[in-house]
């Protein structure tokens, strides 16, 4: 899978309030499917479906050796998503810093601008 495909999976997995709530719960510690289903008005199969999406995106892993098969949060895809966002923030910051320089340059030549306007 390419980095871009992984990001697509991460963002798609995050684009659902139930899945974000599951991640928020797992951020406090591992939990079984049953424990995850409790706070939601949802069946365990419905929760399992959401967990599959999160597992495919690598955001959640299963401890298959433990009896209750607890789910655990995997932070790496989230870190990659944050890195990606930070890169784009830098791009806009680069744009705006260029604009700062352009505005300073335009203000340094006010005489010429005024003459051409009058």
């Amino acid at each position, binding site marked *: 899978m390419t980095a871009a495909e992984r990001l697509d999976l991460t963002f798609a997995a*995050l684009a659902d309030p139930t899945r*974000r709530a599951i991640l928020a719960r797992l951020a406090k510690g591992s939990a079984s499917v049953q424990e995850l289903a409790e706070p939601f008005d949802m069946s365990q199969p419905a929760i399992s479906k959401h967990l599959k999406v999160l597992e495919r995106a690598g955001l959640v892993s299963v401890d298959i050796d433990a009896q209750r098969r607890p789910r655990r949060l995997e932070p790496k895809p989230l870190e990659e998503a944050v890195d990606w*966002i930070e890169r784009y*923030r830098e*791009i806009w910051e680069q744009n705006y810093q260029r604009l700062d320089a*352009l505005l300073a340059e335009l203000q340094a030549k006010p005489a010429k601008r005024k003459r051409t306007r009058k």
Partner: protein
Amino acid sequence: MPKPLEVTLPSDREVRVVRSFDAPRQLVWDAHTRPELVTKWMLGPPGWTMPVCEMDVRVGGAYRWRWKSQDDGKEFGFYGTFTEVNEPNKIVFEEHYDPGDVGGPITSEPAIITNEYAESKGVTTLTVSMLFASKEARDGAVGSGMTDGMELGYARLDDMFKA
């Protein structure tokens, strides 16, 4: 002196970006509406150029922006029409994504972009509000263009932490 970029989420489909500039409002307006000035700064990351920047700044007038990668020659852009022009205070336009050969999803409904310029003591504060047709449209835009990614990314991040 560079000012920090502020990003907030007024609503589910909206992203707002605020940035101040040490320049009078008219100048900041000019830098956003005159193609010969826009192409000097709205370039994105190193290695990209802006070969197409056409702007007919009046209500109903069209604009077209296109960026090109110097590495592989790939292009993408945005286009649309201006729906409100109130120089030098406020400009509103519809924004369609043009995937070119960079790719990314095409959403039929454009985003509505509002730029507002407020001046106080020689400092102009620019507020950019981006309103998307749907949550899906916003999600689609996240995976696509180069320039919108930051705001949208932050929207996602805030969403995530709201959960």
